[in-house]
């Protein structure tokens, strides 16, 4: 007689194939590259709230997979989160915490607080021990005021007046360290964020294309998608291209005719609505 009881289903990742994967790597298997966002993401606190910024390039190794990718994710009407690292991980974790925040808003009847989002994110990332490769800049404005945090893939967090993450973080941080001061106005804040993102775009190969900005103040959030487009295509052939039939060599042709006669049967089961 076999076992009658079933093991309870385990959540999260199964590490059963790790030994096999290591063996494959040793034998020369090439792992498919994850799509990473390369990325420059920044945030800063100004006098009335928080400004977040991000570039828009998603890379797959040395190739640009998406030239206009959205890296500023919605968490709550008053909280937004920029994500760097593996694109799937940042999307999944921000969507998940965003849903949890909404349920929490329904349960409490109050506006979400940034620290709530922070705690949910850090406990999720910590429990996955860094395997969920998401580095985030979380910013928002709640009843306690403006907040800006960074969250690392292993689950640690920092609370900062200005922050940068991603492969272009050093380029962006150099701009912030030179020009940031407390009590910036809204225009100054946006301009500084755009400048920091541009530093990442032009000096880091993992970041590029356009600048996205998000301004969160008391009661109002403005998502300025493609705030700047500093990289237009430099040349386009005026001649255009013609693709003449026959340029691609046809090696063989096989034509299979499908059923010429279709029989319709009356009075079958009704389709489900």
């Amino acid at each position, binding site marked *: 007689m076999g076992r009658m009881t079933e093991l309870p289903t385990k959540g999260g990742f199964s590490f059963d194939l790790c030994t096999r994967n290591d063996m494959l*790597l*040793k034998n*020369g*298997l*090439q*792992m*498919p*590259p994850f799509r*990473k966002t*390369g990325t420059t993401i920044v945030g800063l606190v100004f006098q009335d709230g928080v400004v977040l910024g991000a570039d828009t*390039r998603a*890379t797959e*190794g*040395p*190739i*640009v997979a998406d*030239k206009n990718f959205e890296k500023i994710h919605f968490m709550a009407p008053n909280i937004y989160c920029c994500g760097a*690292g593996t694109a799937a991980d940042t999307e999944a974790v921000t969507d998940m915490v965003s849903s949890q925040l909404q349920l929490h808003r329904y349960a409490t009847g109050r506006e979400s607080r940034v620290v709530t989002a922070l705690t949910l994110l850090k406990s999720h990332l910590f429990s996955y021990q860094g395997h969920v*490769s998401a580095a985030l800049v979380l910013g928002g404005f709640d009843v306690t005021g403006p907040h800006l945090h960074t969250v690392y893939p292993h689950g640690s967090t920092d609370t900062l007046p200005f922050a940068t993450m*991603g*492969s272009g973080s050093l380029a962006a941080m150099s701009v912030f360290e030179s020009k940031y001061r407390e009590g910036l106005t809204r225009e100054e804040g946006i301009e500084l964020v755009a400048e920091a993102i541009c530093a990442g*775009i*032009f*000096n*880091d*190969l*993992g*970041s*590029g*294309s356009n600048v996205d900005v998000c301004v969160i103040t008391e009661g109002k959030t403005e998502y300025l998608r493609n705030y700047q487009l*500093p*990289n237009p*295509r*430099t*040349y*386009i*052939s*005026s*001649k255009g*291209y013609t*693709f003449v039939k026959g*340029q*691609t060599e046809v090696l063989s042709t096989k034509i299979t005719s499908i059923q010429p006669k279709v029989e319709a049967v009356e009075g079958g089961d009704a389709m489900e609505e």
Partner: protein
Amino acid sequence: MAWPCPASSAVQPLSSSAPPCPSLAPSLSSLPKGTRSLSLNRRSPSPSPLPSLRPELTTSPSHSPHKLHLSPPSHPPPSPLSPHGKPPPPISCSLNLTSPFLVEKEKQSISSKANTEKQNPLLSSLLLSLLSSIKSPTMALRGDWMYENNGGTCVAIAGIDYCVVAADTRLSVGYNILTRDHSKICSLADKVVLASSGFQGDIRALHKNLAARHLLYQHQHNKQMSCPAMGQLLSNTLYYKRFFPYYAFNVLGGLDNEGKGCVFTYDAVGSYERVGYSTQGSGSSLIMPVLDNQLKSPSPLLLPARDAVTPLSETEAVDLVKDVFASATERDIYTGDKLEIVVINASGIKREYLELRKD
């Protein structure tokens, strides 16, 4: 001039880490997979890893640079400073030492050759230590990885009475840009221009070497080297360093002795071919299909060999090159900043620049 051979200097420390193997005798049976190979005797069992030695698989230009096992295929080698602490995808290493395709007969012939060629074990162990370093994912930080890929793309197109050679001017390492204004093009003779991408250290050395050889030729023969002659010289120079290659992907362009456009394309160890157009470098896999579509040349497999120069005019060819580079810049992070276009025709060498995206 005597070149210091790496095998003659202290190689023993490296060889201690190499697994035992049959000697890499320069026999057909142990050619590395992917280097363009031609069987000399069609009746003998195929030595290469390909199941049957079909010429169209081994001599097609589009395969060659990507499959040379010593140089990484289409994507650049891992950069030393990878942004997230995770190295980029490891290079597939496929040296065919224990290939299932090697028949019993060849295994015996390899082992018999191992006894006769004593100096090869040193070279082979050096090669293997190179390869073992290629296999490990953290190789970029190991002391014995001797190359670095500085990125970039080169293109050359041959016309009826002109030749266009173009390369971007970005030099990068990992995710950083070293300079936006570095020329990858070297004018070797008044009718010959060489564009190379890859490791700049090796490229500088290679260009210097060729320029010196050209000067010697001029003194000895009282004339400039022709493009086919330079083509052969480059191939020999690259193959001379067969066991410690120049990490350079070259495209040679110029006018041949009749004044017609002439383009030669190379892999890292000197296998070359005269073609109507070619591209090498990080953006080559993005550009080559477009050139294949627009400049369709007759198949190189048809005999007698037919000339593959494009019927396009010089301005049309330059327009195509500009557009194709602008497109490659959109999708390849290592290509960009500025494009240097060199046109060689009967009246000499002319240079032009085009701004590209700087992100």
